[in-house]
């Protein structure tokens, strides 16, 4: 294949397949070969599904000939290993599920497959999506393609690294506190977390049920729009799925930014934000302004409380969700148990890694008798205050823009020993999860050769605004097209 297929976006590949420039089998073979070449350096995948991918590509090529091509017919994608895939290992980055072969497909997986997408494999992630650096994965950390001794962020770090390194044009992710947007920022990719309830979570292994949402990592807002259109929509099998009409996201891209009211949060540019990152974000804001957007300062007085609130609510929900891993029906089971209690305690003690155990214990503590009111109830009240800050801001602006992450990618090993420093990585992203809002990160520059992300948050169901904003910005910048040197 003479064409550099890996360098093309999903939208470009769709056009190429449609024109017959190449087949899905050729495309899939090219990307599988690329994964083979680069995987050892990156550790972005837990499972590569080469045979299934080629079989799906063959079916897609046949469907095209038969005139039955879906909107994603023959287009490659990777799934975060948190999504259940029938007949394929689904580990959630944990020893607990090291041998778990899912008996069913997640709705997201199913919808993308029905649209014709070809799954290249399952991407590495922080264990049970608990982490901001990918270092908590049982399968080892993912490396950032921009600098291999740096973290790609987390928890969807494998998805982000794979997209940044051009191993796949797109990958699914999940976002509970920033797990799509922060790795997107740290790898120079586009990451979209939709509104809570927008995309089905059926078959997506639960972490914190009032915060989790499925989304995507791509190399352009245009590609994110294409995938969201397929993934979004009501699902009876997910009790948190919300019935709300699915917009034509691709059509939404073409609108202009004239008159768009963009809120700048005063507190986002306080100490804590790396100065050079801040400068890159401010330049991006000036670009939006040059397109007719109106920049307005807004106040988020409770921003500082969002991280502590999250670290009560998320662990509480995780301690409840992860109680299903009991060594009985699936997952790791300890050998030679003395009795039932020993079986529970050792299966869980051996199956979970240190960070997951800490979160389960934090959650157990804040929900335990005597502490519930002081921690859990209090956090849910503060959560209300934080959501109110957003709602007040959205009375005045259409979208909030700022930095995605306080710094560019940090070195592997630098933050893993201090949970609080690691948790503060998500200070700008967590609020959207607490309030159920859609958020997106798009590349807006570099600091010392490492990418920086521009973070956008919209009111509930405002994905069109995010995508329009991102797409307009990407038309006037080329950051999202930059490719790490070793992965051209």
């Amino acid at each position, binding site marked *: 294949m003479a064409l550099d297929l890996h360098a093309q976006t999903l939208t470009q590949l769709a056009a190429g397949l449609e024109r017959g420039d190449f087949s899905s089998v050729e495309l899939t073979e090219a990307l599988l070969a690329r994964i083979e070449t680069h995987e050892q350096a990156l550790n972005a995948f837990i499972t590569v599904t080469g045979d299934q991918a080629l079989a799906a590509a063959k079916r897609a090529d046949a469907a095209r000939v038969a005139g039955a091509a879906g909107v994603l017919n023959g287009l490659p994608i990777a799934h975060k290993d948190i999504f259940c895939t029938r007949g394929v290992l689904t580990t959630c980055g944990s020893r607990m599920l090291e041998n778990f072969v899912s008996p069913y497909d997640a709705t997201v997986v199913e919808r993308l497959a029905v649209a014709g997408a070809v799954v290249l494999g399952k991407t590495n992630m922080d264990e049970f999506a608990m982490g901001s650096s990918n270092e908590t994965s049982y399968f080892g950390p993912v490396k950032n393609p921009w600098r291999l001794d740096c973290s790609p962020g987390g928890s969807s770090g494998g998805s982000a690294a794979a997209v940044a390194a051009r191993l796949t044009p797109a990958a699914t992710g999940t976002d509970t506190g920033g797990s799509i947007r922060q790795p997107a920022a740290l790898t120079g990719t586009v990451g979209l977390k939709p509104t809570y309830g927008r995309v089905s979570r059926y078959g997506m292994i639960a972490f914190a049920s*009032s915060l989790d949402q499925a989304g995507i990592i791509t190399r352009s807002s245009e590609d994110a729009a294409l995938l969201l259109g397929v993934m979004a929509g009501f699902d009876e099998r997910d009790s948190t799925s919300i019935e709300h009409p699915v917009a034509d996201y691709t059509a939404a891209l073409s609108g202009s930014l004239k008159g768009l009211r963009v809120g700048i949060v005063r507190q986002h540019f306080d100490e804590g934000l790396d100065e050079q990152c801040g400068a890159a974000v401010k330049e991006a804001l000036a670009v939006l302004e040059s397109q007719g957007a109106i920049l307005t300062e807004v106040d988020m007085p409770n921003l500082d409380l969002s991280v502590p609130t999250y670290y009560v609510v998320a662990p509480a929900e995780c301690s409840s969700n992860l109680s299903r891993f009991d060594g009985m029906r699936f997952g790791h089971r300890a050998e030679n148990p003395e009795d*039932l209690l020993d079986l529970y305690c050792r299966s869980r003690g051996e199956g979970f890694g240190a960070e997951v155990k800490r979160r*389960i214990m934090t959650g157990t503590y804040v929900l335990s008798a005597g502490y519930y009111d002081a921690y859990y109830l209090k956090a849910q009240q503060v959560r209300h205050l934080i959501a109110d800050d957003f709602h007040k801001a959205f009375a005045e602006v259409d979208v909030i823009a700022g930095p995605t992450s306080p710094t560019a990618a940090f070195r592997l090993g630098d933050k893993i020993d201090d949970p609080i420093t690691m948790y503060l990585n998500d200070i700008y992203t967590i609020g959207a999860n607490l309030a159920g809002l859609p958020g997106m990160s798009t590349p807006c520059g570099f600091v010392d050769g490492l990418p920086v992300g521009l973070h956008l948050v919209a009111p509930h169901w405002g994905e069109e605004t995010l995508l329009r904003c991102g797409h307009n910005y990407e038309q006037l910048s080329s950051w999202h097209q930059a490719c790490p040197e070793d992965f051209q």
Partner: protein
Amino acid sequence: MSLDKDQVQHIAMLARLRLADDEFSETVDKLSRIVDFVDQLSQADTENVVPMAHPLNESQRLRPDRVTEPNDRDHVQQNAPLVEHGLYLVPKVIE
């Protein structure tokens, strides 16, 4: 240290987690730091603030109580560590 060894031992038991000896003191230290960190919530004025139950203020949807899934027991049990005749095997609970 906001949590002591006994408290952490108690929490671990409530969570059904056996901690190895070499991870225990680190867990006490890090859990204490997390608890200290989230303690700053106590300073927030939340008088008359309703605790948030759902990010979009929706209530949990109910569905009719109908059988919709086929019985897929054998397939599902392929992931079980120990089964016999379609039953999950556990250590003896009643003497």
